[in-house]
């Protein structure tokens, strides 16, 4: 094993490898930070460029994009209030509120630290217990996946802000939006109204961009309109780029650990991915600290640790079993196979040194991301020095491009517009937006796995309680949904006893 490790070190520590890792990290951060681009796009664009590279350089550049992308999504979430990637959707809630309070630098610093923490944690898990986790993860069939996703959906309760009823309605509406397009099992068209563009369903990114960006832009425009006759106020706010102090790191340690563990575990389960992990981690943070959701740093720590925990987690089934956990690892699987490497148990036996080289490269990539983001952070916060109307105008144009560029589909711009309009009214009438996004993220998975499970069981619902994993997750989901009712009942009882 030591021989393989030393050989892995010699493969990983080459100038060529370092250059490609750096290039991948920068590209991933940039693509994720711009709402119009995603790091999956960067991965696809890079595949042809990796043909002429050595296997380790090819994998390193892709891993750089993956890790950099997971971290970079927080930049636009915190500074602009638009998630750069679906995985950064949970970061918007507290991150953007912190930016509004003039603490963007603190939020960015903590996001970077938490991301790297999550990345390194998941790498350690990948090195130490990957085969064991892979054995558990592979047992997750449609039944268990359905229960896990329902459990994830039950977090809408903690995301419901002032009204649980409104939060649930928003979440259900998100699920309903997922039913537009092709039916996941039979492939029939549903609610497409004759529009071919709707066959692929309602895109997550256009909805997210519309719902988060447009209400903010319109409100800022109206504010500017209201203040137009007032003497100009110097808008420049002094935002310092802060990296967390040792004390803050210590305070965040337990939450970082919990969120990273959630990210790694969820990431290891094929068919899940970053957004589910982030919302689950945010829910944990909210339960520990009720101030999360009102612009608290814990609301940045949890999702950022979780989404980078997913990077190592998603590599567990990929490297040990050859099963990609999400779209990014599916692209990486293709890249590995192009270079003659077949992921799975044989990869560890036949190319042990290369596997170690990949592990070492991931570690270096995490430190590279930390360094690049730390230096870049001072530049990123300058965005907030731009006058509000000018900045919002730029975001408006980017929102149009961002919606269009993902699928090069004009209909996505229209979807973004109506999502923005709906988001504006939801905001005005106290409906939280995040549960709707969560519904949209999870809806397809819930329906697909539920119906597949029933096909396996010949229509018997009993399949969901005969699987112990499913049963546990469903009980947890019910408890989470009933928690506010139980809590208020207990409080009433306590009050009665006190009298």
């Amino acid at each position, binding site marked *: 094993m030591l021989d393989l490790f030393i050989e892995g070190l010699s493969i990983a520590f080459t100038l060529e490898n370092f250059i490609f890792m750096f290039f991948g990290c920068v590209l991933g951060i940039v693509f994720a930070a711009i709402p119009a681009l995603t790091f999956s796009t960067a991965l696809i664009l890079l595949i042809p460029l990796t043909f002429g590279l050595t296997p380790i350089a090819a994998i390193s550049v892709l891993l750089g994009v993956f890790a950099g992308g997971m971290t970079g999504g927080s930049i636009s979430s915190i500074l602009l209030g638009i998630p750069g990637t679906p995985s950064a959707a949970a970061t918007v809630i507290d991150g953007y509120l912190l930016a509004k309070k003039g603490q963007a630098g603190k939020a960015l610093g903590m996001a970077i630290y938490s991301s790297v923490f999550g990345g390194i944690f998941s790498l350690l898990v990948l090195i130490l217990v990957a085969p064991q986790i892979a054995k558990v993860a592979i047992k997750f069939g449609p039944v268990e996946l359905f229960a896990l996703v329902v459990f994830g959906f039950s977090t809408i309760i903690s995301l419901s802000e002032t009204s649980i*009823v409104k939060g649930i309605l928003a979440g259900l509406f998100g699920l309903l939006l997922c039913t537009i397009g092709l039916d996941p*099992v*039979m492939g029939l068209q549903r609610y497409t109204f004759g529009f071919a563009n709707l066959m692929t369903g309602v895109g997550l990114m256009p909805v997210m961009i519309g719902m988060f960006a447009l209400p903010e832009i*319109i409100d800022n425009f109206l*504010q500017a309109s209201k203040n137009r006759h007032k003497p100009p106020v110097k808008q420049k706010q002094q935002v310092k780029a802060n990296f967390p102090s040792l004390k803050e790191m210590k305070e965040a340690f337990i939450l970082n650990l919990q969120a990273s563990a959630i990210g790694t575990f969820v990431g290891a389960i094929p068919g899940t991915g970053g957004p589910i992990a982030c919302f689950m981690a945010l829910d944990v943070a909210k339960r520990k600290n009720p101030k999360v959701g009102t612009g608290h740093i814990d609301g940045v720590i949890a999702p950022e640790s979780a989404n980078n925990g997913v990077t190592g987690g998603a590599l567990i089934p990929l490297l040990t079993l050859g099963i990609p956990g999400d779209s990014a690892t599916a692209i990486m699987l293709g890249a590995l196979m192009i270079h003659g490497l077949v992921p799975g148990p044989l990869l560890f036996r036949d190319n042990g040194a290369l596997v170690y080289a990949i592990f070492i490269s991931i570690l270096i990539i995490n430190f590279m991301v930390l360094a690049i983001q730390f230096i870049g952070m001072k530049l990123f916060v300058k965005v907030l020095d731009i006058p509000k*109307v000018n900045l919002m105008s*730029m975001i408006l144009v980017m929102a149009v491009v961002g919606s269009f560029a993902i699928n*090069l589909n004009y209909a996505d711009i229209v979807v973004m517009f109506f999502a923005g309009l709906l988001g504006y009214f939801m905001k005005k009438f*106290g409906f939280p937006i995040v549960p709707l996004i969560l519904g949209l993220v999870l809806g397809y998975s819930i329906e697909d796995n539920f119906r597949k499970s029933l096909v396996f069981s010949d229509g018997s619902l009993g399949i969901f309680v005969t699987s112990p994993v499913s049963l546990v997750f469903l009980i947890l989901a019910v408890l989470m949904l009933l928690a506010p009712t139980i809590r208020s009942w207990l409080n009433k009882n306590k009050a009665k006893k006190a009298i």
Partner: protein
Amino acid sequence: MKHNRIIAVILLIFIGWWAYLTTQLPETTMPGEPGPKFFPAVILGLMAVFSVLLFFTKDKKDTAMVKTDETDDTDDAEDAEKEVEKKEEVFPIFSALKLFAVFFVGIVLVYFLGFNIGMIFGLTVMLWMIGWRLFPRAILFSAAVTLAVYFLFDWLLKIPLPKGSLF
């Protein structure tokens, strides 16, 4: 409460219409499989229940914890926090709708005349509406932003932006 009641009624009408669309979906042909109607029907059922609940629900006040004033008499005044109702500035919805409408016209123009013309028009009019009365300034700023984004995506990143169906 009044708003909640109106929204609940609108939601129930929407649910009724969507339920009608759901009944038009074909039945399943696979044994044991609930078919394409099942999932939307369950969601609509739950939405109907929660819409009725919304009709009778009063929202909690949106509060935030703020540090109390230093002049507070309590010993730990500097660290003390109190719960206050959050007050966001409320803008007239009609003004917002006008901005949305102009943006929508811009989007429609993007379809017919392309990204550059559509966005320059939409942004210029929006800026004029919010008080940039100097048209050349609004046009120049809108054109600069739009063309910079166009240059970045269409030229540098080779991501084609809408050219306009009329061209």
